[in-house]
């Protein structure tokens, strides 16, 4: 324990030289997206596993491209809004320990800007023309055939979808911008009043976050099967979101420590705390996922169990079991020990593991819906449909998001130097 922590100098924590990596990330992003589009339209993606009795249907590659991109977008989006939640939470609870890693979370929220354009292009714009390859509810003919969806048309329609997405992103980007702006300005003027100001709006910010995250989960992911509904879905989405953010926080903090900007700033104690959150949210995700499942399993009402049915009994069974084991049992036992959380290399491995399983979680949520609602296709028996586009779409989306995050890091200090709680954070101890 340092009795009096040494505040690092501005020069020590300044992040520099990220312009080139950012450009590389952007280039990779462009290549990834172009590759995805190329595969989708060249026919390399394959074809529908079963013939439609109606003959005509959209090309398999294009529909699969939409879903692959959506999985990657949701993976990155959950991470970014997890970052926003982390920032709001620290201000809401006036936490001291986290000041040294808060700038990392602030940088992660920069990914929201490219994600806005990706969501608009992939998810929203097609629905305005009444023909989405992702959302069945947006197809006029489909909605007319399904009374339940027709009934929900007042909410699920292209223009209102666009308005909602714009509102969500306006709130997220607005809040992230507000917190980043004041945090960076505080580096210059060391004004503690800024901390009070950030604290003051954190309560309202948290309510706004809860509402937008819940409805974004409903709109972007749950509406893939618009006949199914779950009030727990937003919480489920959020649980995975904060889980992946903690993993990202570990990896970015370690990377900056290795580069030197967070050396002697972020300590074993901070990694231990982030590890604890990772462990806690492993459990929280499982708790919520099981709560959602068990009520439907118990009531056993067809309109509610349908969504689980083709995930559990068919080609998706193995992935469902893998998710229960890999998203809950294995990381729970793995992250249980204090020694794991205090060992950087081991914790980093678990962080990577968590991000992989968060991807599988998003995949499990989105991909069975590729076949659901398509005439002649049975989501339970269409295979798990791994496709090269899953990889290219992931690389593409992450490339763009990483570009924005690296750009945000570049030329700024890696620590909130002006935060009055920085000394408390620097000498933070768990015991």
């Amino acid at each position, binding site marked *: *324990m340092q*009795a009096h922590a040494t505040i690092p100098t501005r020069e020590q924590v300044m992040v520099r030289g990220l312009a080139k990596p950012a450009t590389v990330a952007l280039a990779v992003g462009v290549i990834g997206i172009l590759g995805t589009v190329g595969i989708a339209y060249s026919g390399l993606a394959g074809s529908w596993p079963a013939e439609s009795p109606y003959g005509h249907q959209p090309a398999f590659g294009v529909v699969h491209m939409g879903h692959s991109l959506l999985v990657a977008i949701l993976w990155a989006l959950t991470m970014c809004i997890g970052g926003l939640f982390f920032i709001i939470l620290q201000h809401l609870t006036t936490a001291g320990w986290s000041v040294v890693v808060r700038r990392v979370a602030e940088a992660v929220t920069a990914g929201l800007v490219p994600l806005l354009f990706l969501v608009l292009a992939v998810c929203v714009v097609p629905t305005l023309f009444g023909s989405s390859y992702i959302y069945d509810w947006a197809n006029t003919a489909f909605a007319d055939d399904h009374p339940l969806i027709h009934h929900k048309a007042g909410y699920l329609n292209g223009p209102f979808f666009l308005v909602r997405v714009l509102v969500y992103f306006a709130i997220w980007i607005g809040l992230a911008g507000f917190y980043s702006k004041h945090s960076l300005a505080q580096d210059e003027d060391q004004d503690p009043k800024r901390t009070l100001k950030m604290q003051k709006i954190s309560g309202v910010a948290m309510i706004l976050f809860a509402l937008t995250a819940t409805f974004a989960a409903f709109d972007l992911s749950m509406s893939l099967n618009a006949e199914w509904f779950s009030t727990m879905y937003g919480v489920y989405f959020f649980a995975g979101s904060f889980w992946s953010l903690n993993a990202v926080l570990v990896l970015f903090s370690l990377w900056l420590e290795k580069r030197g900007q967070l050396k002697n700033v972020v300590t074993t104690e901070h990694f231990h705390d982030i590890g604890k959150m990772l462990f806690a949210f492993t459990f929280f995700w499982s708790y919520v996922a*099981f709560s959602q*499942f*068990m009520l439907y*399993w*118990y009531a056993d009402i067809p309109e509610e169990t349908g969504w689980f049915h083709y995930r559990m009994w068919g080609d998706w069974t193995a992935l469902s079991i893998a998710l229960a084991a890999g998203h809950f049992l294995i990381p729970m036992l793995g992250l*249980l020990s*204090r020694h794991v959380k205090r060992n950087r290399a081991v914790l980093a491995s678990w962080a990577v593991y968590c991000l992989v399983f968060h991807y599988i979680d998003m995949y499990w949520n989105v991909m069975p819906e590729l076949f659901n609602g398509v005439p002649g296709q049975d989501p339970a028996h269409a295979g798990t449909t791994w496709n090269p586009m899953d990889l290219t779409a992931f690389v593409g989306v992450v490339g763009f998001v990483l570009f924005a995050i690296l750009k945000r890091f570049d030329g700024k200090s890696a620590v909130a130097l002006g935060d009055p709680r920085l000394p408390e954070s620097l000498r*933070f*101890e*768990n*015991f």
Partner: protein
Amino acid sequence: MADSKATTPARPYGLVGLYDNVDALLAAARRVRDAGFTNWDAHTPFPVHGIDKAMGIKATFLPWITLTMGLCGLAFGIFGQWWVNAKGYAFLISGKPMWSLPANIPVAFEVIIAFSAFTTFFGMLALNRLPRFSHPLHRLDAFARVTSDRFAVVIESGDPRFDAGQVRGLLAIGSESVVECPADDSRASLPGWLHGIAAIATCLTLIPLAMAYRGRHSTSQKPRYAVWTDMSFQRKVKPQQTIDITVGGVPLFADGRGARVQVPGTIAVGQPFDDMELRYGVQVNAASPVGLEPGASGVPDAPWLTGFPAALTVDSAFLDRGEQRFGIYCSVCHGVRGDGLGSVALRAKDIRGARWGWIDPKNLQASATVLRKNGELFHIAGHGISTMKGYAAQIPAEDRWAIVAWVRALQASQAIDSKRAPEGDYRELPIGLLEFTQGGR
């Protein structure tokens, strides 16, 4: 670490260094740690981060006990539910499997939490050798401020390296004062009679278990014991009870019935009066619905319909419906063949239900039933007879007629000589027989 064993009354308990801030305390703790003392402790008014490291305290093994007991809780939770639901008191609930993992997870989870929490709490007390009756430091006035604004490091005289002068010098660095804590010869351990009470209380907890065990292996004719009877015996009138409520000395209802019967000539809300044949089983020209007082045959005298209402089409689909409804509502008592040997009837025979007024379900193939008119059977299905209840609330009129048709088909099929059975499709048989029975009436 707070443990001590006062050796002789003359020897003091130890020396107490008092500090007025956290940093001084931590520095003192580090010095004492480095000097190699083992019987010592630090006391603070609030949890101090970093104190473990400063004192050189090794991590406790309490988490391992908690983990072990948590896993025991998991095993106990799962096993307990399996035993109760699927083994000891197997009871089918809404068609679910007797034992299914998802339903058991919430309870197993709670049991894990309960086991872990209690283990952690009591394990912490046990590892700290708590509770104890007294401690020498509590007799030291200067020590009282440790609960508000002072920090103390206490080195016990029982420490092998204890040397009064040296220790005093060590604690004095940065301290406000160093005071001697006198020995305390009052009893620290719990008195013997408390152990006795604990042992008796433990034995008493076995009584409910023994009673439960005895209950599982014995039978009784007494009603079960109820602690709170207000659910079983409520202050209300039930349909089969009489009431003795009087208003101003006059009985509320002259007949004393708990449930009121429909006033003759009236129609309840939602009770259609559109088709006398279909709704009441009487002929179209009957003046009013069926009367209330049962005649000699158990049903009121009325111009009962002999055939089926004109509104219904009697065909094989109608009979299929009747077979299905009969299977659902009637067969449990009357048996699937209508012979009066349903599972309820057999069970009632087994336990000699007649002792409590149970009347055996009729053999529907017996001549008494065969001779009844269709309208009478329809009326009985809806209103009940002897100990049979009326099913009008559960079975719509159309379905009661379908059941009557199926009863006729059963009677005919059992009565017929196999040589007279029509040739051809087996499924056509009942409808042919029905025409036969109707024609015969």
